[in-house]
């Protein structure tokens, strides 16, 4: 059942890619959306086999050296990951069907569905080869979701390095254990003398894949594409494969606590980077991406804690991220696609409804996550909720309550966006509320606090604009354009490699080989030719020389025959 559904969705994506047309794009997008919903209907209605154990199995390569099986399977432990992907797919396809953000709508819709199918192979992999190949396929398909060549370039380079490191890591494991099963990882770390290197490689790969601090630039490039595609790239391609990888290969950390600490430090750094950048960077879409970066750090931390109740929250966190990015896009759309936050401000008069929905959405998130604040390890959720509230208060303060910086012509057209924009936000909100456990014993308290008190507090804090001193950063060109991580890579890796290459080329290739070795051989050959000419012309002297050489040779052979050395 599960395999059949994935196959159907994959085929739908493939057909869309092959037969994409320029005519009736909207209808075809709708048709694809409907078809995918139809395929997923048993799961969406809660009647499917998503939480039951099922297995589809294919014996792919079977030689004396290596045996590789491909499998698709479900079970309670995979369900949160599968649900997450369903949510992201629905988010992307519904926006694709409703709105005209993209010129090549069908192409992207096809790729979204294909990536979903590929992601199912990543999630349900039980051997490292399937994991590796499926991750690479997701990367390749993700690559075709990008059009801008600069974005593609960074995306490809970072992914190429991560994939290559993963390949080396898995080759090391397979070479040692001769077992492709993911369960072989624990045996490998116990017995192998190279386990330390392997864990190091794994940490670097996960950092690159998840786009953690210093490795995040390839994901931030997505600010030049539509926010739906950007969101999809964040939660359904490379960074999500990083999360799955982290979840599936946690065995590698046993006995290597330093690796866990290293990852935790990186996650902390990523979260800090995302928070500061969210506050300081001017562009709407960049802010959304930093929000996603924060969420991915949070998800990785949840996986690293390895608590079942936290894992079950995975789809809801992603849904919250999608919903909040929808909230952030509202003023952008309303202000005639104004890309900079600093060029808005004072929109509260013209967008009261949008502000209300936005504040209620944030409050809904708080309501959903509040019951988990008493659990073991709840500090993580506390931290996330506090950070989110602070960040969004700052965002609302700038966009809705700040001084008006917008052009008069822009202000003239500002109004609440099309009602469709609220559709996904409200749908997500409804899902969160539906699955939420009540925080307090009485309905009155629950509704009163999360519909009145919390929103009022958010609005009041936004009106006060506590972080308004940060607005100065928008005017600072260096802050807005700085890419310290890329510069670091340039200085630490690219420049030394180029310098070394140039020095080697000049000294060895050119000076030593070309000028010395080749010239020496050439001169030797010329000398032999000159000697030969001389020997043929000066019979008297050459004859004497040859006779002496002959006598020496005869003596040498005689000496060798007598025992020589």
């Amino acid at each position, binding site marked *: 059942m599960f395999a059949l559904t994935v196959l159907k969705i994959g085929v739908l994506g493939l057909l869309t890619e092959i037969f994409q047309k320029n005519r009736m794009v909207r209808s075809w997008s709708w048709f694809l959306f409907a078809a995918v919903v139809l395929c997923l209907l048993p799961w969406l209605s809660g009647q499917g086999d998503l939480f039951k154990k099922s297995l589809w199995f294919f014996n792919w*390569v079977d*030689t*004396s*050296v*290596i045996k*590789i099986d491909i499998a698709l399977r479900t079970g309670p432990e995979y369900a949160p990951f599968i649900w997450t992907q369903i949510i992201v797919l629905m988010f992307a396809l519904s926006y694709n069907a409703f709105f005209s953000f993209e010129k090549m709508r069908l192409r992207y819709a096809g790729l979204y569905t294909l990536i979903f199918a590929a992601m199912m192979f990543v999630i349900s992999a039980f051997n490292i*080869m399937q994991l*590796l*190949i499926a991750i*690479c*396929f997701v*990367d*390749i398909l993700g690559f075709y979701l990008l059009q801008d*060549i600069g974005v*593609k*370039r960074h995306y*490809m*380079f970072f992914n*190429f*390095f991560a*994939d*290559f490191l993963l*390949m*080396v890591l*898995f*080759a*090391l494991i*397979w*070479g*040692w254990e001769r077992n492709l099963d993911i369960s072989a990882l624990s045996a490998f770390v116990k017995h192998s003398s*190279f386990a330390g*290197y392997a864990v190091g490689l794994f940490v670097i790969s996960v950092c690159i894949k998840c786009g953690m601090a210093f490795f995040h630039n390839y994901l931030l490039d997505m600010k030049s594409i539509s926010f739906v595609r950007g969101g999809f790239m964040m939660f359904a391609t490379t960074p999500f494969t990083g999360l799955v990888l982290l979840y599936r290969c946690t065995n590698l950390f046993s006995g290597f606590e330093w690796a866990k600490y290293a990852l935790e430090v990186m996650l902390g750094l990523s979260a800090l980077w995302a928070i500061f950048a969210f506050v300081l960077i001017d562009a709407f879409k960049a802010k959304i991406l930093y929000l996603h970066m924060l969420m991915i750090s949070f998800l990785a931390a949840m996986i690293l804690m390895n608590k079942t109740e936290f894992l079950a929250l995975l789809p809801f966190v992603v849904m919250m991220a999608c919903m909040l990015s929808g909230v952030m896009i509202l003023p952008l759309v309303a202000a005639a696609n104004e890309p900079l936050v600093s060029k808005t401000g004072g929109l509260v008069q013209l967008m009261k409804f949008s502000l209300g929905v936005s504040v209620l959405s944030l409050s809904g998130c708080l309501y959903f996550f509040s019951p988990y604040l008493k659990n073991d390890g709840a500090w993580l959720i506390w931290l996330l909720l506090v950070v989110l509230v602070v960040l969004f208060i700052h965002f609302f303060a700038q966009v809705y309550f700040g001084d008006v910086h917008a052009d008069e012509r822009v202000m003239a057209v500002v109004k609440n966006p099309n009602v469709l924009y609220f559709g996904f936000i409200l749908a997500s909100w409804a899902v969160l509320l539906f699955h939420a456990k009540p925080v307090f014993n009485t309905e009155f308290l629950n509704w009163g606090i999360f519909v009145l008190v919390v929103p009022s507090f958010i609005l009041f804090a936004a009106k006060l604009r506590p972080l308004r001193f940060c607005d100065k950063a928008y005017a600072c060109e260096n802050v807005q354009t700085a890419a310290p991580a890329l510069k670091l890579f340039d200085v630490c890796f690219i420049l030394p*490699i*180029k310098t*070394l*290459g*140039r020095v*080697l*080329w000049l000294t*060895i*290739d050119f000076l*030593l*080989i*070309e000028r010395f*070795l*080749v010239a020496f*051989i050439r001169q030797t050959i010329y000398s032999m030719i000159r000697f030969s000419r001389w020997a043929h012309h000066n019979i008297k002297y050459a004859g004497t020389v040859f006779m002496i050489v002959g006598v020496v040779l005869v003596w040498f052979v005689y000496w060798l025959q007598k025992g020589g050395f």
Partner: protein
Amino acid sequence: MNSVPYLLIMFLLPLGGVLMLLLAQDDEKSKGRNALSVAMLTVWASLVFIVLALSHVDSTYNHLQLVEQYVWLENPKITLTFGVDAFSLLLILSVNVAALIGMWGVRHFSVKMKSCMILTLLFLSMITGLFLAADVMSFFIFFAALLFPLFLLIGLFGDVKRQIALFRFMFYSICGALIFFVVLVVLYNHDTANVMLNKMADFKLGPKGEFFVWAAIFVALLSRIPIWPFHSWIAAVHSSIKNPLVFVLANMTPLTGIYGLMRFVPEGLPDSLLFLSTGLEVIAVITMLFIALIAFINMDFQYKIFSFMTVYYIFFMLGVFLPTSQYMLNIGFSLFAFMIIFSSIEVLVAYQEQIRHDNKLLSEGILTLLPKLSVIFTFMILAAVGMPLSAMFVNNFVLIAALLAYSFGTTVCAIAALMLVASALLVELYRRKKMPKLDFVTDDVEDISSKDFVFVSLTAVVLLLSLVNPLWFIRG
């Protein structure tokens, strides 16, 4: 003897093609199209026989099969023995497919087409003979003979620096062939019977004799691979060739060295050379890193392709330190995909260079003007850098695993070189895909034709098939 002498036919078919080519009309009107058609037809026919032979070979059986013997001389008694296994057939298949792709790449060329095709078929016949050879004598004959058509091809189609290139090429290759000849004489002097390749490892010559013979064999075979510090010589040859077909053929010479190493030492290095293994590893790694580093800074795409090929060839060569008989099929499949990828890249680069030359354009951003070519070129580069788009992926995984288990340090350096050379290709790809400056944009540029696009797409499909089911045409 088999009822159908497949191996002899495989060797003679290209020679038959040469005879047909000599009769083919070649004038102003035909512009070499006749010659090209005959040559392509011959290669297609060869491919049919190769696939037929593959269907008769058991891939699980590690010894030479379909053995055929032909007496050449009675006194001294010299018998040529042909025999194949799945590995050698895969290599024959890959050189033929690569040559076919190269021929497709020169189909718009008209200068000296007939000579080019005659020499190409001659080369194909010789290299097929080398892969079919089951004894040392046959191996040596083809090992030396394939230099002749290659020498003429480089002489005819090299650029202005071809004299230096030819000198270096011949000096390097003939030295190797001469050393091999000395080995042959020593072996014949020791035992008048012709030694079979798979029996070489068991041949006893005494400690000094064995050391000399094995060292000489290694030097002779390594002379075909651009090993440091002689890599720049081969680089000079390759960068002087602008004809894609000749470039593809010239770049097959290292394959003969690698094949020889695999055949002569199927179970790892011989005991007499074990003490040299560290030195060989060091030289291999230095060459890989050196060439990869220079590829990273060199702006010439031909050099980058050469570097990519050399680094991969040496990576496959490192397999000689493993019990190669166990990994032979993996190396064979990887090489099969590798040859298709590199020949396709070379043909596509030659097309871009032609466009660049005709329209006086820069190479930077040229792919933005050629969208169809860009798609297929990107696919090939992604397959080349190691994405799972061809048989290279799984088989390289197996090889890397085996090498890591053999020598961690050496393999890590080799992997670094592979990553560097792949990065060099990616950098070049994005340089060519970068948006050009406004004055660069022109509407006159003609993208790859539909026919060419279909042909190259078919090679991409073959590559994908090699990933999906690499063993579909092999029994066992």
